[in-house]
């Protein structure tokens, strides 16, 4: 296997994007030729060599090509986009769209990634050792065909909207998952090692979701069906199996309805406890009495402070981002 090493040499002023960091594009090219490939920052076009030092050369084919990005690329988008074979290794963090539309090969990120990694994946193996943000392994906007195949692994935590519209393939999350996991799923398999926050399998038609750490709040449209022992990654575990989403359409096979299935590891029962759950609405920041007094003092010479002035003061002083309506009410109460 021929290795191409990309060493980040300059931090981009904005964000770089390029469809060219992929074994399919690097194959058959020398370091010089790879350096000439285009990267974009907003409406400007540059060369890969403007931002990376390039060593080595591409293999004869994509399958013979390995790319190692030796550094932080947290401001570079689309690494490994559409790759069909070969390997890519990122020895740092990366931005959005890592492995987007990936069809084959192996992509490893030793750090964390932003959102949209592995969208519309059809094959290959994408592994992220750190955390990932939102829409991991999801479909592109509007497309009912999400991930079709391949394996997507995030060892850390993931954000929301993971696996939306998944049709096939496997997503494995080592840590926790935020809301809206596998929304509109029509196939595929998702395993969550930690806790899933909620709205798991919302509007799911078909598919399997395993949550080992439990779900904080199950959808009311799922019904408990039975207990089952399943072997996952070589380990046998007991699960409570829920069928649903009962608000969604389902197909039939041999006269039986084929539901989506959520497997909750027994022992990790619904993590919600009655009465203690916070209202899910955005935790509205509120000033305590001392802060309100401090603010009143700061504005005592200003009879008619604008919402903007007060909002900025609160943000700069206390670090709270209050909504204009809240600030407006605070001003009214301050006047009184």
């Amino acid at each position, binding site marked *: 296997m021929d290795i191409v090493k990309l060493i980040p040499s300059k931090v981009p002023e904005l964000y770089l994007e390029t469809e060219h960091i992929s074994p399919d594009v690097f194959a058959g090219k020398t370091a010089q030729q790879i350096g000439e490939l285009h990267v974009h920052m907003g409406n400007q076009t540059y060369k890969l060599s403007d931002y990376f030092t390039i060593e080595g050369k591409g293999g004869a084919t994509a399958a013979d090509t390995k790319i190692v990005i030796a550094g932080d690329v947290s401001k570079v988008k689309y690494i490994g986009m559409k790759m069909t074979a070969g390997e890519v290794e990122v020895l740092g963090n990366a931005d959005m769209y890592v492995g987007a539309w990936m069809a084959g090969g192996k992509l490893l990120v030793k750090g964390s990634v932003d959102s949209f990694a592995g969208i519309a994946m059809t094959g290959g193996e994408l592994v992220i050792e750190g955390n990932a943000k939102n829409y991991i392994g999801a479909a592109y906007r509007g497309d009912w065909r999400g991930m079709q195949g391949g394996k997507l692994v995030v060892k850390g935590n993931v954000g929301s909207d993971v696996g939306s519209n998944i049709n096939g393939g496997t997503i494995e999350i080592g840590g926790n998952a935020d809301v809206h996991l596998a929304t509109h799923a029509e196939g595929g398999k998702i395993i969550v090692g930690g806790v899933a926050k909620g*709205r798991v399998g*919302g509007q799911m038609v078909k598919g399997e979701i395993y949550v080992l750490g439990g779900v904080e709040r199950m959808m009311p449209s799922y019904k408990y069906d039975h207990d089952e022992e399943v072997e996952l990654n070589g380990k046998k575990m007991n699960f409570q199996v829920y069928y649903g989403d009962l608000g969604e359409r389902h197909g039939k096979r041999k006269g039986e309805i084929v539901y989506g299935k959520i497997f909750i590891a027994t022992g990790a029962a619904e993590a919600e406890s009655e009465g203690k759950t916070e209202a899910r*609405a955005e935790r509205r920041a509120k000033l305590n009495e001392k802060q309100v007094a401090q603010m009143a003092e700061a504005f005592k010479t200003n009879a008619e402070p604008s919402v903007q002035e007060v909002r900025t003061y609160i943000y700069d002083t206390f670090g709270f981002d209050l909504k204009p309506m809240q600030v407006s009410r605070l001003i009214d109460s301050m006047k009184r």
Partner: protein
Amino acid sequence: MSKTITDVICPFCGTLCDDLIVTTDDDGKKILSVDNACAIGAEKFLHSSDHAHRVTRPRKMQEDGSYKEISYDEAIEHTAQILVKAKKPLMYGWSSTSCEAQSVGHEIAELCGAIVDNTAAVCHGTTLIAVQNVGIPSCTLGEVKNRADRVVFWGCNPAHAHPRHMSRYSIFPRGYFTGKGHKQRKIIVVDPRPTDTSSLADVHLQVEQGYDYELLQALRAAVRGEPLMGDVIAGVPKEKVYEAADMLKSGRFGVIFFGMGVTQSLGKDHNIDAAICLTKDLNDYTKFSIIAMRGHYNVTGSGQVLGWQFGFPYSVDLSRGFARYNPGETGSIEVLKRQEADAVFVLGSDPGAHFPMRCVKEIARLPSVAIDPHITPTTEICDVHVPVAFVGVEVGGNCYRMDNVPIESRKVVEPPEGMMTDQEFLSAVLKRVEELKAN
């Protein structure tokens, strides 16, 4: 003496009432009174007429934070320069101007490789995402007036935000098949709080805040005759959920109106997605539609013009020379938060008041310009403020109502002496940008 102008369109909210009667002085310079408008609409007309308090010329921020008046030519030069120099300018707003002006703005954006975004980014953009996922069974507001006997207000409070909506379309009017008006309509309001709108409801479901998605899926299951788990679902007793499902199915024409209560609360587009799926399911039993309560009077128009010119309704990234779209990456909030833009152009909206503070700070930091008839929190953080004539008052132009019906707004009075319109200003900027790009 005075002049009376009828059939005037109100340029404030998405209800886009077109039956206003405006009386002006004989010169056509001052508005004396406005009939039929709600308080907010009337205020817009009357307030605009107070030229003494209008900013009539562009202003530029000085080193000490004060503003100095500059000419329109200087403002045009400033705007063209910051847009042409930028690698990724953000052109935001558009919701309070005409389609004709929006179209010129888009030409500038295409030439400069900018991101074009409108207020849907903080409002009904999530609705647009949901529609992209599951479609939307809908109808015009006249259909509601003529046929509806089941009306649901989910996460919206028209009594406050769209004051004449209920009397013109959704609760009180007597239409062709609805001669008994509100007496033959059943109103369901879904809102965690009691509101002025819920006080008119036959059924008020006080959903647990942040659990609308769960309630919607439960309703879908109930509509399908499926069992539900638990006695209380998202704050609503199970029996009430079944009752609501039956009430919806038993009507002959239902409609769901929804607003920020669900577009911007947890789940955002998923909430709307589920509401649309519920509407679609109900069409297996009766006739049902769903309509978004759009806020600004022409945010819908911005989405339409962006749609036919670029193929996407908001958060459109033109920086690569061809249009791309992905809210979460190309939307104004994240672009500003991640510091991905290097110039900001705002027209016809007020992000300074509504965006998260981090984004507001970013607008203040970057080379910027704000085009707005008023002084607003946005104009006070931008380098240059360019005042323009009020669309729908001082200059006409096409607008689109919340149900996508296009209505042409009119000019009823003259703008202050020497003031440009959005379209004139943008055309001048476009010309200058073309000159700069040619060199």
